[in-house]
């Protein structure tokens, strides 16, 4: 643990901060800040909130660093801190409806709901994502997911962690993770289908966005 021990005598003068902090924290920050920012951006959907979350994450990591036991990968530990910080920050802001997703709501009932409305045939995912409209619809769909489902989708499908790792981060068993992931994917799929786009169009008209 000695190698991870850090100095807590950080000066209050901003100009001195960069010169006098401990090397272990700097290394932790340097090695992981880009990944944590990517994760935070995917969770929050915009830069300022993502930066707040990164700051909160590394501040908590700084304070808890001496208690890190090394029985998990340090990146997994940081994901867990960020996930908890995100939940706390959202609770403070209130207002976000946290609803359960039922499989029944994803059973298509009309022809336009089966396929995606922006065709991807013959395109790689990267090529398809060059379409700005598709990117915007995808981002909006992810942002509309209730938080606990979005967290799982981001960790599993966007950050590429295993169901076991995500379970460890969120304190849930693998079965619960897989159930949430499936509902989250079905939700996003529906938003990208004819039904989701039609609903979005009507909402845009109603709110004057179109």
């Amino acid at each position, binding site marked *: 643990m000695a190698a991870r021990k850090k100095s807590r005598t*950080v000066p209050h003068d901003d100009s001195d901060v960069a010169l006098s902090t401990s090397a272990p924290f700097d290394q932790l*920050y340097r090695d992981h800040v880009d990944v944590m920012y*990517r994760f935070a951006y995917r969770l929050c959907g915009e830069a300022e909130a993502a930066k707040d979350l990164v700051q909160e994450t*590394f501040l908590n990591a*700084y304070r808890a660093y001496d208690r890190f036991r090394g029985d998990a990968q340090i990146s997994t530990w940081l994901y867990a801190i960020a996930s908890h910080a995100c939940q706390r920050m959202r609770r403070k802001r209130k207002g976000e409806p946290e609803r359960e997703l039922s*499989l029944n709501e994803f059973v298509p009932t009309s022809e336009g709901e089966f396929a995606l409305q922006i065709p991807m045939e013959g395109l790689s995912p990267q090529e398809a994502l060059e379409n700005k409209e598709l990117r915007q619809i995808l981002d909006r769909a992810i942002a509309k997911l209730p938080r606990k489902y979005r967290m799982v989708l981001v960790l599993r*499908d*966007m950050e590429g962690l295993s169901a076991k790792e995500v379970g460890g981060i969120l304190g849930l068993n693998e079965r619960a993770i897989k159930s949430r*992931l499936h509902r989250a994917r*079905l939700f996003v799929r529906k938003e990208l289908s004819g039904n989701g786009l039609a609903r979005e169009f009507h909402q845009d008209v109603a709110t004057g966005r179109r």
Partner: protein
Amino acid sequence: MADRVRTYPGTRKPTPHQGHGKRNCVKVLERLSAYLDDELSGVVCEEIRAHLGDCPNCEVFLDSLRQTVQLCRHRPSPPLSKDDRANLRRQILKAAATA
């Protein structure tokens, strides 16, 4: 991701309500993520494949779910700028010192 079923969207048009309210379709829908993630036993996979071969709607639905997952996996996010990286570090250390 498993690529067990080759679909050819556009070559088979789904017909509305073709059995999609039926129990088998719902049962398949419940398992499609596990199917894509290769988490099911061979027997269950066979059952799903048999259903998909017989139900164009479910096949199109599976393809759209697979595409959705691929889009999520490949959606890039903007990088943190050098200035923001330095500013954030300074703010974290300042907050840690004053706490």
